[in-house]
């Protein structure tokens, strides 16, 4: 059986170095299989986060040869095995150990987003009537598995560290899902503009490229939100109307 070399980042809280491991590879293997094999045979205390190993839970995010990916969905035959495969933790979040990062910030951001608020039920039995066409758009956003690869690759977070001012692509998608939810009656445009910093995104589409669920993050979520914010707060006509006391659109 063939062998391949894996350069895995080992260390704690930001300090560390690459360690090289040789391990046997078999047809169909994914990167997470190799990491597990190394863990079981050579490095018992290697820290890696994973759950389903089927691309559903979004736990095993890492940077493979510099590309943000799910380890469980990255086949070895898609990588050049004649040189070492590099595996590193995500960079936009505080490092914990080896391949594991601290994702608490993401959970804190989500809690700050005003929650779903449905309109009154349509039918006397307390249910709603919704057309499939109105569901489709939001269902795309609700495919998100919260792997946070989009957050990892977003330069506003990764390079500029604006975690306090910007919610990141994942939560723009989440907010878009709420704003476009056929039943939701709340309005999140003011916080989107202010504390969630939708304006900081300059549409480089890096997030869309890495999404393992192929959500059109930029085109379908972020740009429509930006447009809504612009229409509300920056459109000169709307501004004029507001000055003269007319109700907002």
């Amino acid at each position, binding site marked *: 059986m063939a062998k391949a070399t894996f350069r895995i980042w080992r260390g704690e809280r930001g300090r560390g170095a690459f360690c090289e491991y040789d391990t046997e590879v078999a047809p169909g293997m994914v990167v997470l299989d190799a990491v597990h094999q190394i863990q079981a045979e050579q490095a*018992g205390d290697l820290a890696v*986060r*994973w759950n389903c190993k089927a691309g559903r839970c979004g736990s095993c995010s890492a940077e493979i040869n510099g590309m943000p990916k799910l380890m469980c*969905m990255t086949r070895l035959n898609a990588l050049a095995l004649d040189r070492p495969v590099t595996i590193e933790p995500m960079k936009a979040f505080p490092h*914990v150990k080896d391949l594991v990062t601290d994702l608490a910030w993401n959970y804190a951001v*989500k809690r700050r987003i005003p929650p779903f608020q449905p309109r009154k039920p349509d039918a006397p039995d307390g249910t709603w009537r919704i*057309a499939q066409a109105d569901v489709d758009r939001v269902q795309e956003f609700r495919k998100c598995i919260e792997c946070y690869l989009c957050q990892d690759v977003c330069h506003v977070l990764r390079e500029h560290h604006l975690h306090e001012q910007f919610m990141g692509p994942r939560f723009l998608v989440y907010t878009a899902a709420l704003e476009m939810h056929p*039943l939701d009656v709340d309005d999140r445009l003011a916080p989107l503009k202010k504390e969630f910093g939708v304006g900081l995104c300059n549409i480089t589409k890096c997030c869309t490229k890495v999404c393992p669920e192929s959500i059109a993050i930029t085109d379908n979520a972020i740009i429509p939100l930006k447009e809504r914010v612009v229409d509300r707060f920056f459109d000169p006509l709307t501004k004029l109307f507001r000055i003269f006391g007319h109700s907002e659109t």
Partner: protein
Amino acid sequence: MSEYIPHEHDVLVIGAGGAGLRAAVEASAAGVKVAVITKSLLGKAHTVMAEGGVAAALGNVDDRDNWRVHFADTMRGGQYVNNWRMAELHAREAPARVRELEAWGALFDRTGDGRILQRNFGGHRYPRLAHVGDRTGLEMIRTLQDHGIHLGLDVFMEHTILRLLKDGDRIAGAFGYDRERGRFHLFRAKAVVLATGGIGRAYKITSNSWEYTGDGHALAYHAGASLMDMEFVQFHPTGMIWPPSVRGILVTEGVRGEGGVLRNRLGERFLFHDIPPLYVNQTAASEEEGWRYTQGDKNAKRPPELLTRDHVARCIRREVREGRGSPHGGVFLDIAWIKEKLPNAAEHIRKKLPSMYHQFKQLADIDITAEPMEVGPTTHYMMGGVRVDADSQMSDVPGLFAAGECAAGLHGANRLGGNSLSDLLVFGQRAGEYAARFARECPLPGVDAREVEAAERRALAPFGRSSSENPYSVQHRSQEVMQELVGIVRTEREMVEALERLRELHAAAERAGVDGNREYNNGWHTALDLDNLLAVSEMVARAALERKESRGAHFREDYPSKDEQCGKWNLVVRKGAGGEMEFTRVPIPPLRDELAAILREMQ
């Protein structure tokens, strides 16, 4: 010793899948202080992998459906050893629990008139599964998670419980560690809800995530609670089998619900050759009739591909054993063939089964709209678990509740697809409600410091035994034993051998050592999981040995038929005075007249 971080709550929920989150939401709404403990991050629990849908007799697609039909289907699927009161509550309450999710933001697929769409599934007489494509579990867990985070729950992510604590007979809390730092935590609580899911990781080939190490089962057992039905392990008929690294990953029953068919190497629809007597009246007479059923023809009967999972899994195994399998030792599951019937079939498949399309394309280089998949059985679900009161979900330890997969009763000898997601909603809600009520009525119990110290010493022991036994290797060996010797088809000789090998592995686990420190040390975590894995493995093997008949998911080669006498009891296990596993046959109480009449009527 004994350096730990203390916490105090009214209700402690262990597990943050659907059942745990639903219980936490309910308890929190009742106004008590609630903690949720989860081994992984919030929103990653195994519920996220549920695909096909949630069963509830909404009657949106076929108005002949109602709770009575759902009740009868569940009992038939469970081969009548279910806790019938749970089956009744489940069928009656599932519709309200599903509608409630919609009020919390879930977006199910719709019917033409804008209501929740329902699909066909194995063992359900009418289209009953509310769904979101093939990612229903994700929709459910995200809805519960996003609703729950605004309710003031204390969520402890990546924390693992090692032991339940008691004050006399009643529950007093739990002791565990956090994965990130390896610090110990003492959770004092008035009531504890176990919602830890199943035991799939006891087997080598499984659709379950790493967390499924039978924690709740083992914790309850060691706390003195009774467990039940441990012989009933469901093997889902269709898991991926090729390439080897994806072996076991689930292929949803939804594929068959949408018209997918199973064929052997000779191209035969082999399930037509073997239809069990209980289902003869409900099964299509021809391939054509089966197809019409999947397309919503109310006068057609369902194709045999939608028979119960236990039966389909055994038929697949037989085809393979008798040399009619696919190249990699499974059978063919073909959805691509519907292009003969439907225009735009490829697009239809991608729309209805997006995750399946993606999964096969990415992991196996197979385009399911153009070619058949290769599939075979995979360990999927544990029917057995903590024995609970049907209404309150309390175990026989006061203050200890269980809901979802780690509780027993609803599914009897075999679970119907879609009944797990409804199970965790209905009984998660009930466990939360009754745990909160229990907590409100009693003071905070005391904790025995010696019990805590003993648990801590045991947890740290692997660090003192560097490089003796590799915990990963013990885990793999134990998974092989269960896979080989206590799998789909069982026999006394093999199970006796399994128990012998498990005994050796237990000794090996006592020698398992780990390197490194306590910070996010997967080797240490694996070593600590071994106790639970081995305990549930032994319980399954012993229970399976004890039930000398074949029923539902439990099939004995040496007792291949159903024995009417054995249908009158459930097998209950608890920890004996000397620490041994004590089994008793507990008679099933006679059905209430009203329910008995339903079963007669729906035969």
